[in-house]
């Protein structure tokens, strides 16, 4: 059921908030032991009490259980970023997204597992356990937001807020068969989200259906006075007859087929040559690592988290995957970073030129199909079709399709169009 349908049921007393909450608890009890989607859980008693209050139709998310990736700050629970460095850290404040969701009536079930400091593609670098894929537990759930995707797909919560720096929310969602929206950079406040690469990090939404994603986006969008990069979305003119471009790759025959079916349904589709390249990924790799060394400099063992002499703390507290990324960032000089920024401009220019002629791009989500736990894949390989949207700050929606997922990318602020087409594809798929 969608959130809207649930609210309708709450209203007509066909279902109660506590029933929905206990469904989530049952899913957790049945599958968490296998999946390891969560790091911390909120107190069940307290949640039960909250869910026992009368339904309020004026609160858009009243009674809806959700989870937050553990790199979002929450006062009520420790926020670890899945690292020993912050294993015992309970922040003195809540992230903006947490505040807004709770104000809208949503119930925070817990904090989900992730790759340490959001650096990874399999949620297997977590200081805690590795997260498994609910569709097939021998497979990885993807990363770095594996816990969020697994929790949503398995019904442990109805939606999850994750972060996406180079594909971190979209890739696991695609692997687990869930939906992920990475909005335009600047649409949702990042206040309270531990920064990895602050010019790329984007608060993202993982749900089981498009309607829910749209509803949650509305609740979270807009300025909060604490993040200078967050702005109110300017009005977006929805095209009446969207012109859709599509790019395929070696194993995306499914995409070709989807394009045909959309064409049959009356949409304007044009195949265009793929502009995704490994140069783009190298630039993403350099920029994200360079920014990470800056953003993680604050973990020095003096004020919070793991304490001790700085080199000892950073050696012991950071996981090997984090250290590797920081080492790469530290090895880059300013000139290399500048060169990567030039490539970034190229990426933006390419998309800009494309969106002069078209309203939407349909392309693959994953370059690498879902892999078994223990396989070594890097971001360079996995994020091939995903990172460029972060580099250009553009909105991207990933929806499950056939054996994998497909991605819709649009110009800035075009989330409504992405949802519209995404919804259509979803309906088509289930038809």
């Amino acid at each position, binding site marked *: 059921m969608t959130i809207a349908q649930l609210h309708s049921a709450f209203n007509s007393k066909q279902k109660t908030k506590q029933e929905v909450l206990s469904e989530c608890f049952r899913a957790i009890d049945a599958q968490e032991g296998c999946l390891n989607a969560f790091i911390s859980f909120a107190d069940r008693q307290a949640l039960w009490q909250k869910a026992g209050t009368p339904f309020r139709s004026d609160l858009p998310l009243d009674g809806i259980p959700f989870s937050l990736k553990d790199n979002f700050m929450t006062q009520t629970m420790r926020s670890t970023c899945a690292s020993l460095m912050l294993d015992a850290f309970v922040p003195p404040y809540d992230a903006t997204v947490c505040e807004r969701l709770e104000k809208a009536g949503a119930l925070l079930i817990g904090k989900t597992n992730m790759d340490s400091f959001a650096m990874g593609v399999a949620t297997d670098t977590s200081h805690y356990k590795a997260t498994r894929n609910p569709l097939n537990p021998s497979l990885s759930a993807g990363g770095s937001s594996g816990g969020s995707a697994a929790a949503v797909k398995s019904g442990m919560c109805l939606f999850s807020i994750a972060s996406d720096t180079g594909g971190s929310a979209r890739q696991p969602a695609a692997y687990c068969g869930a939906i992920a929206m990475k909005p335009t950079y600047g649409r949702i406040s990042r206040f309270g989200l531990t*920064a990895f690469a602050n010019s790329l990090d984007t608060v993202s939404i993982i749900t089981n259906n498009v309607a829910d994603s749209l509803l949650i986006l509305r609740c979270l969008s807009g300025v909060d006075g604490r*993040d200078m990069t967050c702005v109110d979305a300017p009005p977006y003119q929805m095209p009446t007859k969207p012109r859709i471009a599509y790019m395929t790759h070696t194993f995306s025959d499914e995409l070709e087929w989807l394009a045909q079916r959309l064409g049959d349904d009356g949409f304007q589709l044009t195949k265009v040559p793929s502009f995704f390249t490994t140069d783009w990924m190298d630039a993403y790799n350099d920029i994200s690592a360079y920014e990470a060394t800056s953003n993680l*400099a604050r973990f020095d063992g003096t004020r919070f988290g793991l304490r001790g002499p700085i080199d000892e703390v950073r050696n012991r507290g950071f996981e090997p995957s984090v250290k590797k990324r920081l080492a790469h960032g530290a090895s880059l000089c300013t000139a290399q970073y500048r060169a990567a920024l030039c490539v970034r401009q190229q990426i933006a220019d390419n998309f800009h030129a494309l969106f002069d002629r078209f309203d939407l791009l349909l392309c693959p989500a994953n370059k690498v199909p879902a892999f078994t736990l223990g396989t070594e894949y890097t971001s360079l390989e996995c994020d091939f079709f995903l990172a460029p949207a972060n580099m250009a700050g553009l909105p991207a929606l990933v929806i499950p399709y056939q054996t994998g997922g497909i991605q819709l990318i649009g110009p800035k602020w075009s989330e409504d169009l992405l949802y519209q087409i995404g919804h259509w594809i979803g309906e088509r798929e289930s038809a």
Partner: protein
Amino acid sequence: MGFPGTMPYLNASVVQKAITAGLALDASINLQSHFDRKHYFYPDLPKGYQITQYEVPYCENGSVAVNGRRIDITRIHIEEDAAKTLQEGIDYNRAGVPLIEIVTAAQLYSGDEAAKCFEKIHSILVCAGVTTGRMNEGAMRCDVNLSLHQSGMSLGTRTEIKNLNSFQAVKRAVAAERKRQMIILESGNRVKQQTCRYDEKSNRTIPVRDKETATDYRFMRECDIPDLVLTQKDIQSIRIQLPPLPDAKKASLQEHFDLSDEQCDVLLCRNWALSLFQNASTFCNHHQTLYHLITGVLFRIEADDVTINPQDLALIATWIVQDKLSTSKGRELLTLVIQSGEAPQQLANDYSLWQINDDRRLRDSVTKAITQNEKMVSDYLNGKMKVFPALVGAAMKQLSGCGNAQKIKCFMQEELYKLSIK
């Protein structure tokens, strides 16, 4: 504190003040500037980097006049403060607070000039309303960079003395550091590039941090703060609100009043004195007399909260000029007026402060003084000139100090001359 997930926010009033400061220091404002991260590890830097403006500051190419010479200001930029390191730990309350940093060119050649330059900038910024200027409250502080070289040779290695918070400290610290560097250089060694602090008690500069190896600050754009974009309109609206600044005020003072350079500086330092002077001068145009009354009496009491009617002040000054009061009796009267709040006329009568100008009485006092001080008179006639003031004093005493001093001196000289030719 640099907790994860926290983000910087540039507050609007900093930008206002920064533009005001730039205009007050005659600099040009860059319409587009941005912020950078300067990375280094130090316990007082919670994020591991400081947000500053490295590549493009918001303001450049200003100047300030010191001792009639033009000192260039190369740049002014906005940045965040570090935490405060104390004996017992680190106080993080200051970390992240915005400040503006004003950098002058290397054109100052003594501790005195450096102190004067600091003082000038300080007075301009206080005048413009950018800062309270209260250095003991941390509103403003100064770092001095210093090097020594032999004339004709290239500039020597420079050291930086940080966190000076008074004009005197600047002067003394420069002298101390000069001494320290001289000792090193004269013994044939080289000066190390270091950061120093000035210790007031021992009057020494003490090296604190080695800056020998150039730190790679890995400057990176601060992407969480959008570019600082200003319009000519923004700048104009601030420019027209600028109050008259010290140099302009001084020029105006000298144009309208008979005051010296130093006297203007003195009045400009205290707003209350300046307005009192200006008000009183509308009733009395004897500016020097007014000035000396203010500095001689009111400065002694630091009359911040003392109210004195400008008309009364003008009246007393006029009486002094008209020889109705001596200068010292004038001061006494002013003090009485302040203490009692009563009218000057009445007080002068009650305390018999009026000057005695009647020749007959004056000559009488002189005669009496001569008669009563035979020994001094004969000393004088025998060549001991220095007893003259004492004889004058004796005459003055006869009149309770109210005699016209000039005339008494005159008459005394006359009488003594008469005696000498007898």
